[in-house]
């Protein structure tokens, strides 16, 4: 009896492993950022793309730094990320074939509604960061090499503050959502992209306290992982996607994504 069961088990296991391995005919892997996934943008535009081309886009949502690493190792066909300096370096080093502008949104500084550092009256974004540092008010940083983390570091540098190691500066080492959860729990400030914030439900006492400085501009680029370095990259399929998302049609799809009546991403077309 035991042997019979054993044989059946082995057969069933082998069969299901094969069944699990069977992938959809046309699909690409896109390494992207948590902001695009968690804001709900992909849930809106990818079905439109799939309906037109039949290509399924499998999104792995990571921080930009991690997404670039995944691309470097050849574990994705294309990237959609937001850290211009690192993106250009990625292409220059030969890991990416090329980069194209896709869309932008903006960063906002959120914090407790009482605004203890009084950043509502800040002259510009740099001033807002300076006020938080001068007041020693709690600030939660992504601390994960993401695009948002890079942007935040640029602001500290611009106002000559080195926050690392300060008691008021907490590095979460986490995605945007968990970082917002932390900030909400601690009543701290943090820098977030508008999309993730719009879709974030556990705000507690947090609100947008500073926005609007052109320096808070947050552009997203699409990169084809270099097929010369990684021959298994699905070049044709990935290019179909990159061409679509940068076309008028893709732009219209991006622009039509609204949350609570608010447009979250603006095509650069």
């Amino acid at each position, binding site marked *: 009896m035991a042997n019979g069961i054993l044989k059946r088990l082995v057969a069933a296991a082998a069969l299901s492993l094969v069944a699990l391995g069977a992938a959809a005919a046309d699909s690409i892997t896109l390494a992207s950022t948590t902001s695009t996934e968690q804001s709900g943008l992909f849930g809106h535009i990818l079905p439109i793309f799939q309906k037109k081309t039949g290509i399924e886009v499998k999104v792995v949502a990571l921080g930009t730094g991690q997404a670039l690493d995944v691309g470097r190792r050849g574990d994705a066909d294309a990237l959609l990320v937001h850290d211009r300096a690192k993106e250009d370096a990625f292409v220059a080093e030969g890991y990416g074939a090329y980069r194209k502008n896709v869309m932008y949104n903006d960063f906002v500084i959120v914090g407790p509604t009482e605004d203890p550092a009084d950043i509502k009256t800040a002259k510009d974004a740099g001033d807002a960061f300076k006020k938080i540092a001068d007041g020693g008010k709690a600030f939660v940083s992504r601390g994960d090499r993401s695009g948002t983390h890079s942007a935040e570091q640029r602001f500290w540098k611009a106002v000559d503050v080195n926050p690392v190691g300060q008691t008021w500066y907490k590095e979460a080492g986490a995605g*945007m959502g968990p970082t917002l959860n932390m900030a909400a729990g601690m009543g701290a400030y943090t820098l977030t992209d508008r999309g993730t914030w719009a879709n974030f439900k556990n705000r507690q006492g947090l609100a947008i306290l500073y926005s609007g400085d052109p320096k808070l501009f947050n552009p997203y680029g699409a990169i084809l992982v270099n097929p010369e370095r990684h021959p298994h990259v699905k070049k044709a399929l990935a290019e179909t996607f990159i061409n679509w998302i940068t076309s008028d049609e893709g732009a219209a799809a991006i622009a039509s994504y609204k949350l609570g009546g608010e447009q979250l991403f603006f095509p650069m077309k």
Partner: protein
Amino acid sequence: MSTGGVGTAFGEALSLILAFDHQVLDIALLSLRVSGLAVAIGLLIGLPAGACLAVGRFRGKQTLAVIANGFMGLPSVVVGVVVYLLLSRSGPLGDFGLLYTPSAMVIAQIVLVVPLMAAISRQVVEDAWRQYAEEFNAMRFTWSQSVRTLLHDCRYSLFVAVLAGLGRAMSEVGAVMIVGGNIDRSTRVMTTSIALETSKGDLPLAIALGLVLIAMILLLNGLAFVVRNWAMRRYS
């Protein structure tokens, strides 16, 4: 979140189950398939390995037993990173293109459950072995005959090893998140969905999904209990 959140979560969990929300159903099914398969393969390796550790007489046996016991608590995130590096296109098994597929998740979970099942199997079989050792020696059983006979005799007690493996596999998030990538309609399982909803700050939905997962694990355990009792009555 106030206590009202938990109440909402219970309501939401109930409506998720009652509505047979097809997205949740798909995710739950994938969880079952991935973890079920990992446990099925894991038990083929783990149970005999544990029995060999109990019965065998070889050097380093004690050390291996300690390792198996210690690895019951193998950090899933470490397993995730190691399996990721193995399956990555730039890794030794990259040519198979398994990263970010359910197969990658099965592989990672096999690594997680094998030591657990081997450790429990070793303990169960060793206890039985102490009872029968003289008898088996008198019957001049070979080493492999002893292992097979003991595994067969202990089969009802070994159910707990299988259930422990299943519980471990279905509830871990660290490994499947890294090697699966939490891709919508592809590698998103119950635990990674819960992590995702938590990230979005939708804590009631995260708890609701958690309740569904706990209900699934309880249901499986109940089912196993019934099957075990039925089999015991039928075959012994």
